[in-house]
């Protein structure tokens, strides 16, 4: 039964192949339905696999399909490893991907390249599943780069607008920086183990020299930082919002960006075999990212940018968990986040759709009555991400905070502050979009410093504007409306998930199903930090978290509904401009970085090629000079012969003398 695991990635691959060749002929909406059916089929097979896996020994199953790259000692197969970790991931990936496919049929309606969109989407799901299911680092890397390529295609899907094209390229290149680290890690792994297979490498990790293990773990972390948009490589993710909103939901929130967390969880024995500072590095980067991104989220005006920075921040929580030894907590948050963030993005997409491609929250407001389903589901997502019980985000975030406290009180404090800010910026978003007065036709306020609209290419809302740039001005009067069932049905299902999925892992008694399910993965259980807290302490921590989240929501209410607190308290220009980090990087790349490249190109033209042409010119010059010798006068030839003869004789004399 488990042998059929190959079907899971194969179905979306078939969908991709069919759409590549016949997509145009199949057309809208059938191509969308086909793609959705393939991914849903994959979900069904995943569920069946999950049921079979329960009976498998150690809940682990490995299958090798064929030999991919066999060269000498280097033997890598296309093979799958199904264990509780990959099982959990494929379930939520295929499940959420099915819903987002369905939603996209409605969202992409009327687009010229409707079939192409689904072609890429199916390829993405295939790559993501390869990433998760690979039984060795290289197959994971195949998926890893594959999802990166799909992300590139889909971010620049509306490529006629330069900003979208730029964003796609930026994402790919930033990801490649991380991929470089991943590759180096694989080389070092092969050198040390002679294999890249998880089942060969990971059990032997404890015997590895600590320096080598550290190097491999850090290099893999570099890869994870790139893919999961952590500091310092997070800059590509906000720009990635240029893609259609379902793409943001699927790739840049629910699935692809969590790949880094998956990777770190998968190789936990390597992290355990490393110096301890590696865990501090991971937790530190996570904590820093979650805090910085949360502050940026406070001031964004674009509805999707808020969610993008929120995603960066939530991924920070997951790395905080990994670094604190809470692998199961990281996976738990990955799952809950996939639900509530996909829900929020799709809800935002529904709003954007209803507002005729408006993305600026300053031109929204009072939408709750006009878009009741969107509003209702959005509120669930909002409460879940803000960490209010009993919604899903609460349980997973709280678990992470518990591990962080165990690691260090500082990390706990940062996590708690982040939780407060999360509640504030999400509260701000909900209040700006769904409450207050309608501002649908207001001009964008130009001068208010905290909310000033920027003209920078990088910062401007690059998104769907191109999609309907012309429609924008013609429809001076905006009439918001609720979206079709294709879009609201996925919202409802996701909302149910976002509300309830937290119950798979309650930290009391035997209710921590997910943690126990994941115990069979590698040495996950052995390498987890063991919490010294009693149930009473945990209950206390839960109360603290709840108070903090409620406080955040209250602060947002006081600021954006009651107006008691000034908005400028939160909406700072420094935050709006994302701490000027992106600008700094862009300036560096455009300035000194580019100058260096130019200098090297100049060196090639002038010095290297200059020498070549110089030699050529020199030879010509010498030829011109020597030509004079050939003057046709016998007397000058005789002279030259004499000189030559004298030189030869002189040479022979020197030889004799030396001897």
């Amino acid at each position, binding site marked *: 039964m488990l042998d059929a695991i190959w079907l899971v990635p194969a179905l979306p691959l078939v969908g991709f192949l069919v759409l590549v060749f016949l997509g145009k002929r199949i057309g809208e909406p059938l191509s969308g339905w086909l793609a959705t059916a393939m991914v849903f089929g994959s979900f069904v097979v995943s569920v069946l696999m999950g049921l079979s896996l329960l009976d498998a020994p150690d809940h682990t199953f490995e299958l090798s399909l064929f030999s991919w*790259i*066999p060269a000498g000692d280097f033997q890598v197969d296309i093979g799958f490893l199904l264990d509780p970790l990959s099982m959990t991931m494929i379930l939520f990936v295929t499940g959420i991907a099915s819903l987002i496919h369905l939603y996209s049929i409605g969202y992409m309606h009327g687009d010229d390249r409707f079939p192409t969109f689904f072609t890429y989407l199916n390829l993405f799901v295939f790559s993501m599943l390869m990433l998760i299911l690979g039984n060795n680092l290289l197959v994971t890397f195949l998926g890893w780069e594959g999802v990166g390529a799909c992300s590139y295609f889909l971010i620049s899907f509306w490529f006629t607008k330069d900003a979208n094209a730029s964003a796609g390229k930026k994402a790919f290149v930033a990801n490649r920086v991380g991929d470089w680290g991943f590759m180096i890690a694989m080389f070092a792994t092969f050198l040390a183990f002679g294999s890249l297979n998880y089942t060969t490498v990971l059990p032997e990790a404890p015997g590895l020299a600590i320096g080598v293990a550290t190097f491999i773990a850090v290099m893999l972390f570099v890869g994870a930082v790139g893919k999961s948009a952590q500091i310092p490589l997070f800059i590509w993710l906000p720009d990635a919002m240029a893609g259609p909103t379902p793409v943001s939901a699927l790739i840049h929130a629910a699935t692809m960006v969590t790949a880094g967390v998956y990777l770190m969880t998968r190789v936990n024995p390597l992290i355990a075999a490393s110096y301890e500072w590696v865990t501090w590095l991971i937790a530190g980067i996570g904590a820093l990212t979650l805090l910085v991104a949360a502050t940026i989220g406070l001031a964004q005006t674009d509805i999707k940018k808020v969610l993008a920075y929120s995603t960066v921040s939530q991924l920070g929580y997951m790395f905080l968990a990994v670094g604190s030894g809470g692998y199961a907590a990281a996976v738990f948050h990955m799952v809950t986040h996939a639900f509530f963030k996909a829900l929020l993005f799709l809800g935002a997409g529904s709003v954007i759709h209803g507002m005729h491609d408006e993305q600026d929250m300053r031109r929204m407001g009072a939408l709750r009555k006009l878009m009741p389903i969107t509003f209702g589901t959005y509120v669930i997502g909002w409460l879940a991400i803000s960490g209010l019980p009993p919604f899903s985000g609460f349980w997973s975030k709280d678990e992470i905070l518990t591990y962080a406290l165990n690691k260090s009180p500082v990390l706990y404090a940062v996590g708690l502050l982040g939780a407060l800010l999360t509640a504030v910026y999400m509260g701000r978003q909900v209040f700006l979009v769904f409450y207050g007065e309608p501002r649908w036709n207001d001009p964008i306020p130009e001068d208010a410093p905290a909310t000033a609209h920027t003209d920078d290419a990088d910062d401007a809302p690059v998104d769907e504007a191109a999609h309907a740039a012309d429609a924008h001005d013609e429809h001076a009067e905006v009439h918001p409306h609720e979206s079709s069932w294709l879009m609201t049905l996925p919202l409802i299902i996701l909302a149910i998930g976002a509300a309830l999925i937290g119950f798979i892992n309650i930290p009391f008694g035997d209710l921590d199903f997910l943690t126990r399910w994941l115990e069979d993965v590698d040495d996950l259980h052995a390498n987890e930090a063991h919490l010294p807290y009693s149930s009473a302490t945990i209950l206390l921590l839960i109360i603290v978290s709840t108070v903090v989240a409620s406080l955040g929501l209250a602060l947002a209410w006081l600021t954006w509904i009651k107006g008691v607190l000034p908005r400028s308290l939160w909406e700072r220009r420094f935050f709006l401009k994302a701490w000027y980090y992106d600008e700094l990087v862009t300036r560096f790349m455009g300035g000194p970085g580019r100058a260096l490249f130019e200098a090297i190109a100049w060196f090639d033209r002038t010095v290297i090629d200059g020498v070549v042409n110089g030699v*050529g010119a020199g030879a010509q010059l010498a030829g011109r000079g020597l030509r004079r010798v050939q003057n046709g006068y016998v007397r000058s030839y005789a002279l030259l012969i004499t000189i030559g003869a004298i030189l030869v004789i002189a040479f022979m004399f020197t030889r004799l003398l030396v001897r």
Partner: protein
Amino acid sequence: MIAAVLHTVLASGDAAGHAASSFPILPVTILLPVLGVFAILAVPSERGDLARLVALIATSAAGVMTFVVLAQFATGDAGFQFVSEATWIAALDIKFIVGVDGISLFLFVLTGLLFPISVLAAKPDHDPKGYYAWLTLLMAGCLGVFVALDLFLFFMFFEITLIPLYMLIGKWGHGRRVYAATKFFIFTMGGSALMLVSIIALAYLAKAGDASTIANISFDLQKVVASDAVSQGAARWIFAGFAIAFMVKTPVFPFHTWLPDAHTEAPTAGSVDLAGILLKLGTYGFLRYGLYLFPEASITFAPVMVVLGTIGIVYGGIVAAMQRNLKRLVAYSSVAHMGFAVVGLFALTSEGLTGSVLQMVNHGITTGALFILLGFLYKRRHTYEIDQLKGMQKVAPVFAGVFTVVMLASIGLPGLNGFVGEFLVLVGTYLAYPAVAIVAGFGVIIAALYLLWAYQRTFHGEPDDATKAMPDLRGSEKLIMVPLIGLIVFLGIYPKPVIERIEPSIDRVIEHVEAEVPGWSSPTSERGSQLAPVEGHGHDGEGGEGATHAADTEDHSSEGESQETGE
């Protein structure tokens, strides 16, 4: 010379004893384009179409023969197959010996594939008869150079490739074609002169008996290899002579500046065959005539070559990023890609060498495909300048899609062919020089940068008026791309059939080097030294034939056995 070929054809090779060599398939393959040249010369000048047809038939016929060779090639046999032999200049023991092994097989087949395609892909703007004659002659030279097993014969084919390409660039090229052609010619000639001196010196020194007469002299590669008469010092000098010729041809930094000019000015077919086939003469030469003939010197010079190759990877990529002309960009990307081939070769590991040969083949396919696509572009827009192109994806989606696949292969996306070679090269290099692999890995980032940036500027964005009138790929053009795209995908997913044919010959070379240089062994994975010994896995120093392949699963070990028994 031709008499010697005919002789082998008629006398049908008595050498080697391989079953398949009863029919002299290699000489026939080389002879077909030569006959084609004569046939083209017989065509009246004004019948360009007929010249094209004859060229197509001749190159295709030779191409089919190369695939016959591929089909009959005995996988797992490390030695030379299909060997044909005939005496050419008896006094000097110069022979017409040709044979193919895993190292040359796919370069030979690639030649057979790319030449018919390059005949189809573009037409000359004037004087078609001469154009097709030179192009067809070039094929004969390329086929010969990969299978020659006699030093003198190799040199002769090496030189034969030079003149047709010089003529193609100089006569049918773009703007500064004469400058480019001359530069190409002088560069390569300079290298060849040193190589000729080296070959003659080697033949003298390697022969048995008195070195001051020509008695016993031989240019037979196998005899020269078997000789141990050459002193270490002399071997290093002779190696250096070969090395410079190959460095120019590859090209290795800093001998690369002829390449961008040659590519930019060459007609499409010239660029395709130059990038696809001729550059490999350099790296192939290093493998066959550098490493095989001079193991000790190769090991001595390896660090230098690895560093130069790495510079080529990073430097070539950076300079490529700054180019304003698409052909120059691809030319510099070739410097970077061939840098991988050089690094992998001189890492002197099984993975690195196998990766290097794969990289040669893959680069030939992807860069050949890129130049063909640029040829299609030129036909439509009459420019390669990035500034003058914008928004082509909207107008020509199929063209853009095909370009994207080839581009991603060139960037080294896993699942497409470019990745496999590059990755093996880097894995193999890491075993020997970890720091080099880490730096060379930056090439992977830079490759994404320059290609995606160029793609963005030319294909993305709103099309301008000039672009709007541009037609998408025609049916015939799509057909030309089908085999190339097919190979790009196939070799990315299932490179095993290629690797398992290359690798035995690579291992044979490594064993040869290990036997020749006492105390040196090819770097391998540390497994077993760092950890408690686990099973009998890994390369076990000397010997290492069976155990080399004994891998961790039954699947693999059974393969290892079947390789030994020659299937």
